[in-house]
């Protein structure tokens, strides 16, 4: 045998073996998970009319505002699909007793601006709050606006005393009276006297006897974390309003912020107001407080502490002020410094099934629930813990509701501040719990890519009965790693779905789910690209894929 033949054979076989193996890294695609946020806060923004709010301007303020980003890690905040998604810098973590706090201002044309205080505590990974924005051109029942015009003198001052009175209307029985003394001059935000010939005055009056007055309250809640007293000190407390008004003025196109001398505002009170300081219905001679609430900061300022008087046979409180904002009158109850800790027991929410549980905190009047002080939402599975903060140091009722508004549990707490231990909340089985456990797994395949995307951001999924008004969308849950399991859906009727991720909102209509649902979003055969504006969806998919390097 020729020795060279052997060498050749060996070389050939070795080369074939060595080069015959595939590149081990072929088609490997390692991605960095963009779900980098541990703590998030979602503000659900509702209009009093149910209409979606567009072109809203969002501004963050407060000590920790610089630590807040949107879901894409940017300092751009947009209300999309009725949601504002906020996330805490992952390098920052709230500490026990030192939560992350900031506030969100939302303004939009034809809407009264709102200021939402947000607290992210160490226990609440996902904070959900809601804000109702009032459309001044389409007021709902319980709100009343009066617009008046006052002629001013050559120096921009009132030439004689002026009194503006609102009248009961649109479900509002209380009235407000504004008295401008002669010689009152009007100042802009910089403190400059404005001389524009005529003054437009807009006075909004809210019915505070409603249980859900909190929804209308600037700040989204009746708990104020910083209230400046006359001495300059600060305190905090829960406000139980007997009257609520917002007064705004313009001279020409200039918004008026203050005056050269105090004006007097008379707030007619809810005549059936339960005074928690006397434990009786309000009466003449009671002590009451009026508070000015800044629209752009989460604080209030005591304007006046005075006696309830009778004006034209109605109980009222008078206050003198040299600036304009929201004003309220009523009693203040100090807030707890400790959180009220709860843990949910819900055997019907085992196996990681989640359910959005809404809580509402009410003050107590004559042993019954009175004004709604706070509301919030937890995504609950059996054993979920949560905190309710800044509850009042007085008796409260706390009610827990399922997604359909069915009451699941109630607590009657004499003083939340005196309870330090975790309180068990046993949730009765929700009527919607009879639905089967439905799992939904969504894959996304970018056009021109062979494999589905391995990592997708967390997004929020809403649902409503197919064809129902858009105002009835309810949160189904958070879709994490493109997977959600729920018992909120029936497999025998169609639903409309809305997905919100950052500034993206997508709708899918008239879908009936089965027990196990898996779908791939893409442009291939048997893949889905959406039932509404499919071409737009494809462009959006391409755009997002490109942004993310797919």
């Amino acid at each position, binding site marked *: 045998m020729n020795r060279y033949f052997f*060498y050749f054979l060996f070389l050939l076989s070795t080369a074939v073996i060595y080069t015959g193996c595939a590149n081990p890294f072929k088609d490997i695609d390692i991605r960095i998970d963009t779900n*980098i946020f541990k703590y998030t806060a979602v503000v659900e923004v509702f209009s009093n009319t149910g209409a979606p709010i567009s072109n809203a301007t969002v501004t963050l303020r407060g000590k920790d505002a610089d630590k807040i980003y949107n879901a894409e890690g940017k300092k751009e905040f947009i209300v999309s699909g009725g949601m504002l998604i906020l996330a805490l810098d992952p390098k920052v973590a709230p500490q026990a007793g030192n939560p992350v706090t900031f506030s969100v201002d939302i303004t939009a044309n034809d809407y009264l601006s709102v200021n939402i205080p947000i607290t992210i505590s160490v226990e609440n990974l996902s904070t959900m709050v809601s804000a109702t924005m009032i459309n001044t051109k389409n007021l709902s029942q319980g709100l009343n606006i009066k617009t008046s015009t006052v002629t001013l003198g050559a120096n921009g001052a009132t030439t004689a005393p002026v009194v503006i009175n609102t009248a009961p209307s649109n479900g509002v029985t209380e009235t407000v009276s504004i008295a401008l003394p002669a010689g009152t001059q009007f100042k802009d935000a910089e403190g400059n006297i404005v001389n524009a010939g005529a003054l437009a005055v807009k006075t909004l009056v809210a019915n505070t006897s409603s249980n859900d007055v909190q929804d209308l309250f600037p700040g989204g809640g009746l708990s104020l974390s910083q209230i400046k007293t006359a001495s300059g000190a600060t305190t905090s407390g829960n406000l139980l309003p007997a009257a609520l008004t917002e007064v705004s003025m313009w001279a020409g196109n200039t918004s008026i912020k203050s005056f050269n001398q105090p004006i007097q505002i008379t707030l007619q009170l809810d005549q059936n107001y339960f005074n928690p300081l006397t434990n009786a219905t309000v009466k003449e001679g009671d002590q009451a407080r009026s508070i000015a609430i800044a629209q752009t900061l989460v604080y209030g300022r005591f304007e006046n502490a005075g006696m309830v008087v009778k004006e034209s046979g109605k109980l009222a409180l008078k206050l003198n002020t040299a600036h304009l904002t929201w004003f309220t009158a009523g009693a203040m109850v100090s807030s707890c410094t400790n959180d009220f800790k709860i843990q949910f027991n819900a055997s019907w929410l085992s196996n990681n099934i989640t359910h959005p549980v809404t809580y509402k905190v009410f003050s107590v009047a004559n042993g019954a629930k009175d004004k709604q002080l706070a509301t919030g939402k937890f995504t609950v599975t059996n054993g979920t813990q949560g905190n309710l903060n800044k509850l009042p140091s007085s008796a409260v009722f706390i009610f827990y509701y399922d997604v359909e508004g069915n009451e699941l549990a109630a607590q009657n707490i004499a003083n939340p501040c005196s309870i330090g231990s975790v309180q068990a909340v046993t949730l009765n089985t929700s009527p919607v719990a009879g639905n089967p456990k439905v799992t939904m797994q969504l894959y996304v395949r970018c056009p021109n890519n062979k494999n589905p995307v391995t990592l997708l951001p967390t997004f929020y999924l809403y649902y409503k009965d197919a064809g129902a008004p858009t105002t009835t969308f309810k949160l189904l849950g958070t879709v994490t790693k493109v997977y959600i399991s729920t018992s909120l859906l029936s497999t025998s009727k169609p639903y409309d779905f809305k997905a919100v991720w950052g500034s993206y909102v997508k709708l899918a209509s008239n879908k009936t789910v089965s027990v196990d649902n898996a779908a791939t979003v893409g442009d291939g055969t048997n893949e889905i690209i959406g039932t509404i504006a499919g071409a737009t969806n494809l462009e959006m998919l391409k755009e997002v894929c490109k942004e993310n390097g797919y």
Partner: protein
Amino acid sequence: MRNSIFLLLAFLLGMSFVSTAQTNSLSKRVDLGVHGGTQGFGINGAYSFSNKLGVRLSTSLASFARSDVRTWSGNEYNLSMNSNSGNAFMQAEYRPFNDTDNQSPFLQKLAVTAGAAYFYKLKGTASGVPTKDYQMGDLTINKEDIGSINATAKYKPLAPYAGLALRQMKIQSKLSLNIDMGIHYLSAPEVTLTGDKLLSGNEANQTILENNLKGYRWLPVLQLGLSYHL
């Protein structure tokens, strides 16, 4: 890596040319030796029953490391790859042309070998860490906080072997050179791929990697040894 193997191969072949000038061996002998090559380094012992038939028992240990920089989805990773193997190896050797009347010294030393190795250790690992911080919007995530991706490929311990060898190429009276060239047939590798921190969730790549490594079942052996005849 590939170039290194072919250089080694050329070296071994060159050595075999030198050794073919030696004479063939005697029957019934015992050799002890050391070896080195693609299986690492080890020791061996051989017993020849006759001029044509013998057995060899050996053990080897190998550890190879390599680093690389790879880019996935626009993010660069430092990749550290390691392979570790250790085996006990038994092979039978048959020298069909080792006759005294054979005129080719090369063919006299040519042995056909077959056997099996028990790999008490045969594992490849790869670990990737980002080389740079990650920018998400206005946020910068430190590379240390991104995490790492780790892959392993493990084989079952038993692997049959077949090959050719050149035996007893004398250097001195009792010292001789051996060359082994052959292939182990391995089981399909058991692959795992995991990530931590922000690289968790990449487990879908495990199936892809497993498919890519499906062909990695032939383990070539190129080995040079020195034997001492007792």
